């Protein structure tokens, strides 16, 4: 019999209800989907099929396509969100800029718009005929013919990336602002006395000191990108090379190809958890430093 310490005895009544619910709602479903990915019966608990589902997933031409789309989608959203978000944070943080709170607040609105509203509205704006984006680009003289934003493989992925960046860059801006405000001012003062230019300060003071928070931001946006479902589902239904891994899981589930869907889901889970694991390590490091 395991001996419980005094603290453990006191913790149990607080902990147990939550842990039981977590076990039923999170741990059991994960166990269930792992089982299904190794089974050949759609309703689970059936015959053990070994790695058959994974083999057929890897031979399925849709799988490498989904991986490729996921890569571009993730790469595009992460790089652009980080670059634009950081630029905004740096610009608003400049000493001579007035109304800092106003600028941040206005830009942050993009992040709090509900995902479905965001996706539906941009879908309407990206319409080939009657969409406001084509109209504005035409009247600015940027394009001469309407662009089929959501209905061609050339533009569909770009369109959804634009919308994701539109909502994630403000998040990066906010996190980087929090980081910038903690930087020691005297470091900059002494650098200025030494005659450092603005990019020297940026390169040798700002970025090195913002390394940790940048890393956390990037991981966050990255995990969101891999997990994103509603935006792509609503805007393109995964058509025109926008079927990311998350969309593939859903599509296979929808046609009741449960075992294949489970195998795809496990692949998505593994990829997400690699980055989530790195994120957790960062957070633990910070937690222990406190």
């Amino acid at each position, binding site marked *: 019999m395991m001996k419980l310490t005094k603290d453990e005895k006191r913790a149990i009544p607080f902990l147990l209800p939550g842990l039981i619910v977590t076990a039923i709602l999170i741990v059991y479903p994960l166990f269930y989907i792992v089982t299904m990915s190794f089974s050949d019966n759609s309703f689970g608990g059936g015959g053990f099929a070994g790695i058959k589902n994974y083999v057929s997933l890897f031979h399925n031409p849709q799988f490498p396509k989904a991986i490729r789309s996921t890569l571009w989608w993730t790469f595009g959203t992460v790089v652009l969100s980080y670059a634009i978000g950081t630029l905004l944070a740096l610009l608003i943080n400049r000493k001579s800029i007035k109304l800092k709170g106003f600028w941040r607040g206005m830009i942050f609105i993009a992040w709090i718009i509900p995902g479905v509203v965001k996706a539906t*509205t941009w879908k309407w704006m990206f319409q080939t005929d009657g969409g406001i984006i084509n109209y504005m680009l035409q009247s600015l003289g940027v394009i001469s013919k309407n662009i089929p934003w959501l209905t061609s493989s050339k533009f569909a992925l770009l369109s959804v990336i634009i919308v994701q960046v539109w909502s994630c860059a403000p998040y990066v801006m906010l996190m980087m602002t929090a980081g910038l405000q903690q930087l020691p001012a005297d470091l900059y003062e002494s650098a200025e006395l030494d005659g450092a230019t603005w990019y020297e300060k940026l390169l040798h003071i700002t970025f090195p000191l913002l390394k940790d928070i940048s890393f956390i931001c990037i991981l966050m946006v990255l995990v969101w990108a891999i997990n994103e479902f509603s935006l792509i589902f609503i805007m393109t239904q995964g058509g025109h090379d926008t079927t990311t891994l998350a969309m593939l899981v859903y599509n296979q*589930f929808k046609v009741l190809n449960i075992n294949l869907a489970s195998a795809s889901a496990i692949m998505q889970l593994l990829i997400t958890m690699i980055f989530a694991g790195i994120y957790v390590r960062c957070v633990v490091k910070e937690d222990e430093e406190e």
Partner: protein
Amino acid sequence: MKRNTKTIILDILTYIFLATVVVLVLMPLLWIISTSLKPAIEIFQKPPHWIPHNPTVSNYVGVITASEIPRAFLNSFLVGALATFLALALGGSAGYAFARFKFRGNKFLSLFMLISQMLPLTVLMIPMYYMENKMSLVDTRFGLALAHLVICMPLVTWMSRGYFKGIPKEIEESAMVDGATQMQIIGRIILPLIKPSIAATGIYAFVSSWNEFALANVLTRSIQSRTVPIALNEFSTFFKVDWGQTMAAAAIITVPIIVVFLLIQKQFVAGLSAGAVKG
């Protein structure tokens, strides 16, 4: 002097850039309002225009009187309220245990809560559907609220753990010496101290449920349990989309979220850096 001119030019360029970004941020919102106030014939009129020539509220009237949206509002509210309540009760007390007590597995379990916030919903969707199907919970508000606990529980647990950790242990110990029981300490001392944080966490959980799409999309089938995001998406999946009504519905859904955000802006932003990771 030269330095000054340079700063002024840089400032002007910065302001122009920031103003452009703000316009880009607000553009979809203005387009929602513009479209929602246009009569049907104006919506596809060429060239498209921002200010409606004959503004009308008929789209809003249509959404409120003759669509699923009011019922979906009720569904969303009940689902969100139940999920938030359960998450605060279960996750809040778990968060307290993680912050206060030394026990084996503390670190592992609390990190599990953190990482759970990043689980892909498309992965959980499949087993969740089969489990709820077996228990006839599909297409019920209770079933969806349970599913949303997957999001709300880890979020509340992790955030409240942080808040409880912020209260010095000595406060509790001295109350203990004075003969207060554990429940008295929590009810009379701890909870009043972190009331604002708890409220913010609750609102955070509620908004997560309110916005959730992937799970609701497979776990609801009819107006019995359909939430606002699903009802809105229904609008724009018809063969011939009525963009006027769709945008009116979008406006109605977005307003409460923006109001909530304005009310708790400070705590909301603090929550972000406190490790609330669900987007």
